[in-house]
């Protein structure tokens, strides 16, 4: 039976928790029969965003991230939201790295968010009530 899903999980935003968060999202997406190719892209996005939050939103301290997954009844798309209470950090405000440059001329960083933007259909950032909210949307 097809149904809509709205679930959330809150954990410490640490590298060690990337795997349990990924497994939790995968379980829900597999139960809703999302294609492997979509699940794989979502997995990459989770890795990039959680590591970004742990590095940039909580640079000195540790803190939590709430991951919200929204699956519509028809399973034609999905929305994933990452909410943290760390310092304001908009990953979308940085310019994309120039990937045409030779290796030695490239600057470090930015590849993760570049991947997120390319693998998803929409990515948005909001700062609301001292929270960073990053939302990704993917059509199937």
């Amino acid at each position: 039976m097809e149904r809509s899903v709205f679930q959330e999980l809150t954990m410490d935003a640490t590298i060690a928790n990337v795997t349990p968060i990924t497994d939790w999202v995968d379980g829900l997406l597999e139960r809703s029969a999302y294609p492997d190719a979509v699940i794989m892209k979502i997995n990459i996005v989770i890795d990039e965003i959680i590591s970004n939050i742990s590095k940039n939103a909580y640079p000195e301290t540790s803190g939590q991230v709430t991951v919200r997954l929204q699956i519509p009844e028809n399973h034609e798309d999905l929305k994933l939201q990452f909410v943290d209470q760390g310092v304001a950090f908009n990953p979308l405000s940085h310019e994309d790295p120039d990937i045409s440059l030779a290796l030695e001329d490239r600057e470090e960083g930015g590849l993760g968010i570049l991947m997120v933007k390319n693998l998803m259909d929409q990515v948005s950032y909001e700062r609301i009530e001292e929270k960073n909210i990053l939302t990704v949307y993917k059509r199937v």
Partner: protein
Amino acid sequence: MTINKSVENNTTKLSLIGRLDTSTAPELEAELQEILPSTENLVVDLEQLEYISSAGLRSLLVAHKQMAQKGGMKLSHVTAAVMEVFDITGFTNILDIE
């Protein structure tokens, strides 16, 4: 992630199985540091790699740079999903993909 290793003459082949991401990239980096001094050619087989994130790309890049002074590093059996990531990030032009 599981890393299978085989050595033939002066070529080392690593097969990566599973996810290469922030939590598993250090395992690959440790393996690479161990084998790099004694290998002339490196082949990394990605047939069973589920996906790669930017942390995984960075460890491949480090290995690529270190092997460039020797016989080089080749990537084999790159799947369409992993190739998409290489394309997005411009790594298709940097890495030696068979």
